[in-house]
């Protein structure tokens, strides 16, 4: 305590923690890139804030969005977060590709330490702050509509989950501006991430970002599972749920059981780093093998958390755009459930090379191959869904087709890797990097983008621009093949992953091709933003207010686009797997109900954003050893939770009159809209009313 007040306040902070100061002191390319990235974050934040102030939208944002507990708005906010983080992580991927392409027998332009931060943030962001928010957002938006519910089971908890995730993402962003991020990769293996080898703030940023994110996801899993179990509308039996709801359920179950091992792993690592425990250290009996087991006990189910919702999207999309009911619904449900269970039995394949007995490796290898069976079944189910159908090549359908063909190649190399002896060669090489991008880009990203294009008109009331959608799609597919197929070759040639420099000239042409592919992928993302811009500009021409632009099958298409706050004026009652599809054909789905009633909905709450801000502050305090901040943050979070439990006035009512007004406006629009045949669905003739045939 003799060294004054400043260290107590600022903890470990010093001027060199700022990338700008570092770049000033050592003006090399690597530091300048770092400072540039920091500057982009700061300037971006200032610009956004200025814009909001200028437009006078702070109050609107706060009361209509940030404090909202409406599952639809929360879903949209999750997806906005996903796109922001995707932009950053994709740029990092491109930077890494550029570095390796220029670093054959030369240092390139990114220093090793900086390169290590790039792959660590890229991996961490893609998994925890791009993929997870994207799928959580989609499920949030769509699942309650599909099961005929007005909200999720725990709306405020939903908001807390969102803001914990946002806080975690903010922490990763902060590491660009103050300090550095971890260099331990997305898996953060100790002992490298222990104090003895990584004394700086980087690992702590990683620990707290991942911990907050994993707590948020666990809560989300509980929320979704309870919603699906408890809040289905009348007649929505389990075996009538749309496949997307099934995959949402299985993903939620996986989240509930798979996130805690991660939380435990990062918490134990934090104990090692903060309180001198020795769970995973080299000395005093620590053992990193326990970490590897805990991490992958989470990590393998995690890949199915990521992929199952995309499978759900593809099931909806392929069926809708083939104008056919899904082939083998029961088969698909069983396959999904089998995958869910089996995904907990294969984690050892992530460390076949740790020296365990051949019996163990063989058993886990066989379990891994076994998962291929239900996965293959799903692909065939989609193929047979198109069979005898009428296939329309809309953007979501294109993504689904590209997924089916590309994912199979990833499955191919996945089975190769399931053979322990082959894994001994491919582990830790670019072959593995190629494999998991080959699974995750089609199996996650294409799925999310298909879902985004498919449900966007529902959420915002107008269709996305087709032309730019196709351009973007082309870039995503071509870019993927160019960027990642060469990595299989490089990996089979023994090139290790996470390598900042390359010493083998014969690798150069492959690295160039991969670099071009990465640039195309950046172009793909840019086209998505252009598409959004163009679509918003032309929204008047592409309105689908009547709500059914694709001749949809599930309940979500039976309401206006965008849906009213209360979703359903009268809670639906279903008696088939395709309630809206059949409803349209049996009687008039746009007939007003006999009477409207008052609807009670949860009131906005600042609990979520408050907890998020406080959690970010507390985590920031922990990272920088600003103990006062950590303690205040933690206490304040408890205070918020306690205060919330005293809140009594937590609901608001929408009067029957207002419901009636809202509904009548929509019904009038539907009555005035021209029903269109499927041939015209990609034109502005589409006003969201489908011509009903057979």
């Amino acid at each position: 305590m003799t060294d004054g007040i400043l260290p107590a306040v600022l903890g470990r902070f010093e001027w060199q923690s700022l990338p700008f100061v570092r770049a000033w002191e050592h003006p090399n390319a690597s530091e300048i890139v770092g400072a540039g990235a920091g500057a982009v974050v700061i300037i971006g934040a200032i610009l956004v804030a200025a814009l909001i102030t200028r437009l006078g939208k702070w109050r609107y944002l706060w009361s209509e969005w940030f404090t909202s507990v409406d599952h639809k708005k929360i879903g949209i906010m999750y997806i906005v977060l996903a796109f922001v983080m995707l932009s950053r992580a994709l740029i990092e991927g491109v930077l890494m590709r550029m570095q390796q392409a220029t670093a054959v027998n030369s240092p390139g332009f990114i220093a090793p330490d900086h390169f290590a931060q790039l792959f660590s943030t890229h991996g961490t962001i893609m998994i925890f702050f791009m993929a997870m928010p994207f799928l959580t957002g989609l499920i949030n938006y769509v699942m309650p509509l599909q099961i005929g519910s007005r909200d999720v089971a725990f709306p405020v908890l939903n908001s807390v989950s969102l803001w914990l995730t946002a806080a975690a993402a903010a922490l990763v962003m902060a590491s660009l501006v103050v300090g550095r991020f971890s260099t331990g990769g997305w898996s953060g293996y100790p002992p490298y991430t222990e104090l003895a080898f990584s004394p700086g703030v980087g690992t702590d940023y990683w620990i707290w970002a991942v911990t907050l994110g994993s707590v948020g996801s666990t809560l989300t899993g509980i929320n979704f599972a309870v919603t699906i179990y408890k809040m289905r509308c009348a007649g929505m039996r389990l075996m009538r749920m749309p496949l997307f709801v099934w995959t949402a359920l299985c993903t939620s179950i996986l989240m509930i059981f798979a996130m805690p091992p991660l939380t435990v792993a990062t918490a134990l690592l934090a104990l090692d780093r903060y309180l001198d425990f020795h769970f995973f250290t080299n000395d005093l009996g620590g053992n990193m093998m326990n970490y590897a087991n805990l991490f992958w006990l989470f990590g393998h189910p995690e890949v199915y958390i990521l992929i199952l919702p995309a499978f759900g999207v593809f099931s909806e999309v392929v069926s809708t755009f083939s104008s056919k009911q899904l082939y083998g619904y029961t088969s698909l449900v069983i396959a999904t459930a089998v995958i869910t269970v089996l995904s907990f039995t294969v984690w050892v394949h992530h460390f076949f090379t740790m020296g365990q007995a051949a019996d163990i490796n063989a058993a886990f290898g066989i379990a891994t191959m076994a998962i291929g069976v239900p996965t293959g079944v799903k692909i065939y189910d989609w193929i047979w869904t198109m069979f005898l159908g009428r296939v329309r090549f809309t953007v979501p359908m294109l993504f689904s087709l590209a997924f089916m063909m590309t994912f199979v190649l990833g499955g191919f190399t996945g089975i190769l890797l399931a053979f322990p002896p082959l894994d001994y060669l491919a582990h830790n090489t670019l072959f593995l990097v190629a494999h998991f991008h080959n699974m995750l880009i089609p199996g996650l990203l294409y799925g999310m983008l298909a879902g985004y294009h498919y449900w966007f008109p529902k959420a915002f009331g107008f269709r996305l621009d087709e032309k730019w959608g196709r351009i973007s799609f082309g870039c995503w597919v071509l870019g993927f093949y160019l960027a990642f197929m060469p990595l299989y070759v490089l990996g089979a040639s023994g090139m290790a992953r996470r390598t900042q420099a390359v010493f083998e000239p014969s690798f150069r042409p492959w690295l160039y091709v991969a670099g071009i592919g990465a640039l195309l992928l950046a172009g793909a993302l840019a086209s998505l933003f252009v598409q959004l811009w163009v679509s918003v500009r032309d929204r008047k021409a592409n309105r689908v207010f009547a709500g059914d632009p694709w001749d949809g099958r599930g309940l979500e298409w039976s309401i206006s686009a965008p849906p009213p706050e209360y979703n359903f004026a009268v809670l639906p009652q279903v008696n088939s797997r395709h309630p809206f599809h059949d409803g349209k054909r049996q009687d008039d789905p746009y007939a007003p109900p006999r009477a409207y009633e008052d609807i009670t909905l949860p009131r906005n709450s600042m609990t979520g954003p408050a907890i998020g801000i406080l959690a970010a502050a507390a985590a920031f305090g922990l990272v920088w050893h600003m103990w006062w901040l950590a303690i205040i943050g933690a206490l304040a979070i408890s205070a918020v939770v306690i205060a919330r439990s005293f809140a009594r006035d937590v609901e608001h009512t929408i009067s029957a009159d207002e419901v009636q007004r809202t509904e009548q406006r929509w019904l009038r629009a539907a009555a005035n809209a021209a029903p269109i045949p499927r041939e015209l669905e990609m034109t502005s003739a589409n006003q969201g009313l489908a011509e009903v045939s057979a």
Partner: protein
Amino acid sequence: MMLAPRLLRLLAALPLLALGGCAALEHGVMNHAGPIAASHWHLYVIVGVVLVAVAGPVLLLTPLIAWHYRLSNKRHAFRPKWDFSWTLEGLIWIPPIGIVIGLSVLLWDYTHMLDPYRPIASGQAPLEVQAVGLDWKWLFIYPDEHIATINRLTIPAGRPVHLRLTSGTVMQSLLIPRLAGQIYAMTGMVSQLNLAASHPGVFLGENTQFNGKGFQDQKFNVVALPPADYPKWVGQARASGHPFDADDFAGLFHKSSPSQPVVFSSAPPHLFRQIIVRSQETGS
């Protein structure tokens, strides 16, 4: 639409590219130089062929069916309510299960055959080498010859080599793609790897587990000498006049890669044990 031809063209271009890029693949298992790596490659080929047969139908059916049943093609049947067939169901569940069962047998056999701990059958006793992963270099101790090297593993061609591995720092992974698969080296623990070179040559070895900013430099050459030259090399090493001393021991734990491989003319008898024990003491 555009999709199918584009994908097909790409797929067709891949093997061509691969031919042009064969120079790269020469550094990998395809160009195996020992019995273990050769079996790995055989396994690759067998599984690869089976998988082409598995993936093929999907790659063909997806574009064909999507295109044939497109909306604008009015010449096909449309049966929106058709959604099940036991025959198809059997076809999509049973053959894959059969293939996985078949592959499982293969997997079980090869995993045991290529168990890195399994000694290589040979008339000669294996050469014992102890390997230590360090930041950012490898130390190789030859306990029977009482010598040691840094960043060079010299072995006699044709004779099996039995490596015992540990780490003097964080976890690492030793890979010599043309000779054998990889295995982790972990602090305080010993893992094993058996390999052999079937002919003289120089093969790249590396650490593949990221361990800090010198990671990319942690490469070394495995030099397989003609059997008769190996004892000569040992003799030269012993005569090189640079015994491993306390300074060298301390130097192992400096984070650096030597610019040249180092040869020690003698190594203390318990060096490997000493490094393992060191890690159990506090503060390492």
